[in-house]
């Protein structure tokens, strides 16, 4: 788990770049039969209905959120938590993608490791506490 960077606040102002405190999470994919699985589920996307997302603070947020984490899976081991918003996957932006594009970015067969940038509520506070 890498230390934190990009310290800024969460609220989304239309037209302005989104800034957030993020956490780097590196997940090593697990081989299960013929598939490489990560051990979590995603929801959200540009083509989805943002009002039904239970985890987002702002109900117009069309980002990708982690909806489930399988216990003892690679994601849980790496520190991913339910409700996290995924900002980047391996350098690719995930805040303005469709649901299917997000799924494709996460499940590339050639990659064994995915490096995510995730944000969640409480990260900013934790940063402030750590700095005091």
């Amino acid at each position, binding site marked *: 788990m890498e230390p934190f960077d990009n310290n800024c606040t969460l609220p989304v102002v239309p037209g302005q770049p989104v800034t957030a405190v993020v956490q780097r999470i590196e997940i090593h994919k697990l081989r299960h039969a013929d598939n490489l699985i990560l051990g979590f589920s995603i*929801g959200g996307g540009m083509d*989805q209905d943002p009002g039904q997302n239970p985890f987002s603070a702002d109900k117009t947020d069309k980002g990708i959120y982690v909806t489930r984490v399988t216990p003892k899976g690679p994601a849980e081991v790496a520190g991913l938590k339910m409700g996290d918003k995924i900002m980047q996957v391996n350098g690719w932006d995930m805040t303005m993608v469709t649901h299917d594009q997000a799924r494709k970015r996460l499940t590339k067969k050639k990659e064994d490791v995915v490096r995510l940038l995730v944000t969640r509520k409480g990260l900013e506070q934790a940063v402030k506490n750590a700095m005091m």
Partner: protein
Amino acid sequence: MDTESTYSGYSYYSGRSRGSHRHSERSRDRHSKSRSKDSSSRSEKNVTINAPPVEPLLGDQPPPPPGDDTQDDNWGETTTAVTGTSEHSLSQEDIVRITKDLEESVGLGCRRYLSLTLGLLLGLLVFLTPLAFLVIPQVLWPERLQPCGTACEGLFISVAFKLLILLLAVWALFLRSPRASLPRVFVFRALLALLVLLLVLSYWLFYGVRILDSQDENYQGIVQYAVSLVDAMLFIHYLAIVLLELRQLQPCFSVCVTRSTDGETRHYNLGQLSIQRAAMVILENYYKDFPVHNPALLTASKSRAAKHLAGLKVYNVDGPGNNATAGQSQSRAMIAAAARRRDTSHNELYYEEADHERRVRKRKARLVVAVEEAFTHVRRMQEEELKKPPGEVMDPREAAQAIFPSMARALQKYLRTTRQQHCHSMESIQKHLAFCITNNMTPKAFLESYLTPGPTLQYGRERWMASQWTLVSEASVTSSLRDGTAFLLKCIDFSLVVTTKGMPYIRLSEEFIDPKSHKFVLRLQSETSV
């Protein structure tokens, strides 16, 4: 063992609001019946039923004058000659004033005959005038008339048929039995009669000057003149239909009618009518919509009001001083004291009403059971049983009399609890029972007319307590209804308060929707596991 007990009950009609000037009849129910312990065989019951003597309360009294609506203490002085006018209207219309002078001199009965004779004379004039126009030249100067062939014959036929159509139309529109007698003259009818008279007179005038004086030879012209008169009559009849029948069909007012004694309210939709015609429509609907007026139900609130007043006594300690201010301060002191007093009458009312409710329900249960049991004893005779001895075969009236005693007591008690006992007399109940048996009605159907008070019309005429009506209005009764018009229809025991509200002007605008613009998207929320 036969037990015979005589049980006499008197109707407890005591709710009289205003003295004794009414002409309805009161009947005293007196009946004796026996209660038999064993109801299996009919021959052991002894039933003696005395028909109640019907006695008018104050002998033969003339109906109270309809114009009498002043205070009670002046009542004796204002019972003057019977007129049909309401003294409260302030109309100054000429037509109305003329007919009012006529009315005051001849009275109500003559007024009806006068209008009837006038109408008959006018009708005769209308029908005989074209025929006179046609016949007079043939009589006075037949040799000078030019013969006219088929054209005249065609015109004769058309005159005949148009007169026939006019006769049928007048019969349909005007010759119906009158439903009411209104206080003031019917303005539209008077105007139409005047119009017809003017038309006929002007035709006669022209006929006299142009045709009789100069002895015109063109007979076809004369016939066409007569035909034009009949055509004009038909058009006036069309105008009569529009004014008298069609104009008030479209509803544009909603009137709220409230009975002053118990607050029963109904709403009706009326078109453009004058106040007196609206009153007539409302009264016709009163008899079939409002439940019958029952003064016995109002005694409870009256006794409560009396108790309120009797609770406080005011003594003037300072001696007879200034009377005006003493009166005012006295009433204010009473109101203040009444407000401060810890009054428990609401408590009493609550428990009394709950108690009454329970009592009514208990009596009703007993009544229903008694009636159901009574109905099981009688059954329609089948065809195969014709060989039964004639003593056992009964017609409906006898069957009703046979089963009535077993339910009479329960019914009497129920009616007394709901204070309806004066609305139903013994023979009316038996008649109703015979009717129900004849028509194969169930006990529940028989009881329906006693469980809820029905509309006034369903009861006999003497129970209505609503036969002489007076229209009390601030505006003239021939003026038309307007938004906010209020008037009163007074009867002896109560009055109907009528208020009018106009229908709003409706502004309707349109919005066009392209059928191709109905497009939809799905609200997705998918979850993928990776």
